[in-house]
């Protein structure tokens, strides 16, 4: 499972791609009143696909987080980092997050 769009190689482990994930996607299907109960609308994360390090902005000079080794959670909404509420961002997701300018197109991985 490699990210489709990344911003750089991981400065921590050296070998990973710091890919963009979108989290909170299940809110899209939740009725309006239930969605209001949760504060977290779809949000972006930068996650290393080797060491799981997380950044909350597409800027690797900001503070990084290490999720729990077995039960990795999104630091924003506390949902499972690799669960059904998030995915590696596609191009539409990037636009939605307004993170499309942060990526390095040379690091794109197109499936198939």
């Amino acid at each position, binding site marked *: 499972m490699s990210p489709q769009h990344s911003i750089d190689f991981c400065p921590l482990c050296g070998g990973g791609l710091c890919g963009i994930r979108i989290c909170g996607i299940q809110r899209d299907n939740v009725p309006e009143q239930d969605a209001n109960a949760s504060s977290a609308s779809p949000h972006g994360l930068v996650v290393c696909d080797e060491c*799981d390090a997380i950044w909350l902005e597409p800027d690797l000079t900001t503070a990084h987080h290490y999720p729990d080794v077995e039960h990795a959670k999104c630091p924003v909404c506390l949902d499972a980092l690799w669960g059904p509420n998030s995915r590696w961002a596609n191009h539409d997701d990037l636009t939605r997050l307004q993170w499309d300018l942060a990526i390095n197109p040379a690091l794109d991985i197109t499936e198939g």
Partner: protein
Amino acid sequence: MINRVNPHLVDLTTVARSKAASMNKSKQKLVGLGILLLMLAGYTLLPPELQQLIQLQPDDATTSQNNSDGQRLNGQEGKSQQLDTNSKQQEAAKSAQTEPTVRSPTNADIENTAGSRAAKEFGQNTPATDDESRQKIGSSQRSPTAASKNSSGSDQPRGPPSNQGQRSQSSDNNRQSPDQTGTLVHGLLQEISKDQYLSPAGLIYGPGSAEGHRLDHLRRHVQNQPKRPGKHGVFDGGMQGALKTIDDAFRRAQKEQRTTKTIDRNRTIYTVDLGKRIGFVGGQDGGRRRNPMARRVRLVLEGKRVITAYPM
């Protein structure tokens, strides 16, 4: 044992009694001496084989007692020449487990102690450690495909081994199901609890990563991903080769041999030079450079838990 009573403790009121006792004692002495002489005479008349037997028995008893005492106390090796080599080996193994700091440890010893320590943390038995016994267990209890052999391909410095992909696919398609109790996953790993696997060097592979399990993540590094941007380290020898190399790297790292170490919060990142080919550099960058060999391993750990590891 009247004659062992300390004379200073005998007071005057007991003098009469002690006189009678001393007369009794000299009688006993005479009788005892007679019996001793008789036994001596009988002994000299015995054939030499029987004489030897009589001499050995008390020694044997003492030795085995010494040994069991030694083992119970501090794992000291027995000194008797009469022990057979098997029991000597058993003792050596025991002392390797109990006093790793006293002996100059070989790799096998470290493996042994580390494995047993980590296993003890989980209340498990020590896994088989030396290559021979591991292979024995592997071949007797595991499916033949799972016991894939590691070929480092050190005579092939550049590029992926020709049958690398094939071997990886055939032997490592699945992490062996955890219900295979008593078997070693990939010929090395002991399942210590649900989805938790312990390597001989004491590393733990558990759930986590985008792939769902660290072993499934590691599987990414036993095959090239030529389209992946940047470098992609690929281990030689499929999953078993990767796991062995990671254990080797970890042992070296613990001894600080050719190792650089970075600590970031609860993470430790080692880069270990293994001094020989252990894989190759794949990915787009590796492909451009005709897949140069890799002899270093980057190992990211949280305690003994493997986050990721790959050749570089």
